[in-house]
């Protein structure tokens, strides 16, 4: 059990990610309206709620740079994750090697 604990934990994360994808269904678009979007970002929904609560609020500052498309945005997010994951991999590799050397000597 202890030996497989990390694998079980990772399996738990995958279940938590897949269940919403299966549960949430796209509601059919009502005629004349835009197609219903699902799995949109919560940050954007909060922004819409601000506009709903205070319709005359004007954001007083605009982003200096904006990713020109969703593709570029996902490129940058992937880059951020890759930097982090790369370091975690480096740590794991050196930790395993150090433990092996310690065992041999």
């Amino acid at each position, binding site marked *: 059990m202890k030996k497989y604990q990390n694998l079980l934990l990772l399996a738990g994360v995958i279940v938590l990610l897949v269940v919403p994808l299966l549960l949430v269904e796209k509601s059919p678009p009502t005629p004349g309206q835009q197609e219903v979007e699902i799995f949109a970002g*919560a940050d954007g929904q909060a922004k819409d709620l601000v506009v709903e*609560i205070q319709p005359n609020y004007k954001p007083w500052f605009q982003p200096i740079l904006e990713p020109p498309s969703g593709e570029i945005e996902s490129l940058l997010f992937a880059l951020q994750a890759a*930097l982090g994951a790369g370091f975690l991999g480096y740590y794991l590799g050196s930790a395993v090697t150090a433990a092996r050397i310690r065992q041999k000597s």
Partner: protein
Amino acid sequence: MHIMEGFLPVSHAVGWSLASLPFVGYGLHVIKKILQERPQQRMLLGVATAFTFVLSALKMPSVTGSCSHPTGTGLGAILFGPVVMAPIGLVVLFFQALLLAHGGLTTLGANVFSMGIVGPFAAYGIFRLSRGLGLPFGLSVFLAAAMADLLTYITTSVQLAWAFPDPSGGFAASFLKFAGIFAITQIPLAISEGLLTVVVANTLKRFNSSELQEMKVLASQEVRV
């Protein structure tokens, strides 16, 4: 938990920035001290930073039909104390604000306050409390990381409700609306973050048990020889 660029009134934006500033400053001081006095912990500091990079880049689907991301700040707070995560959170949020138009420079102070300060302090407090109550290492890590994630998003809801109270229901009504977007969505993600943090903490426990003991994260009887 990113409040979008320009979506806080000037007074709030300035106020949150001033509130975050001392934490970032003191956090930098602590990080410098760790690097100078305990260079053997450099690697673990890197792991804590890398973990936040990965987790805050992953936008995950939730049962509410919207997407949000975990924060990854619980791990570093458990290892090094909460204050180191303020500058680390700032780096991540600054990158996202500048290049991704995700969050913003004017809302950076507020976002650092929720992700880099409230979350880590919650994680540290809950971890210490759980250990004090005699809960096992893994469970303590899980509770600390999951609650840090959730409280980060509740803080964002408070910040937005404070700045934009509902015209009829005031702060409370507005808070419930924002929390409906952020906190409910975040519950499964917080559980995921808790589980992932335990995976990394287990790995650290296996390979770096002497450092963890030195940092008082593990008790001496838990260290395998």
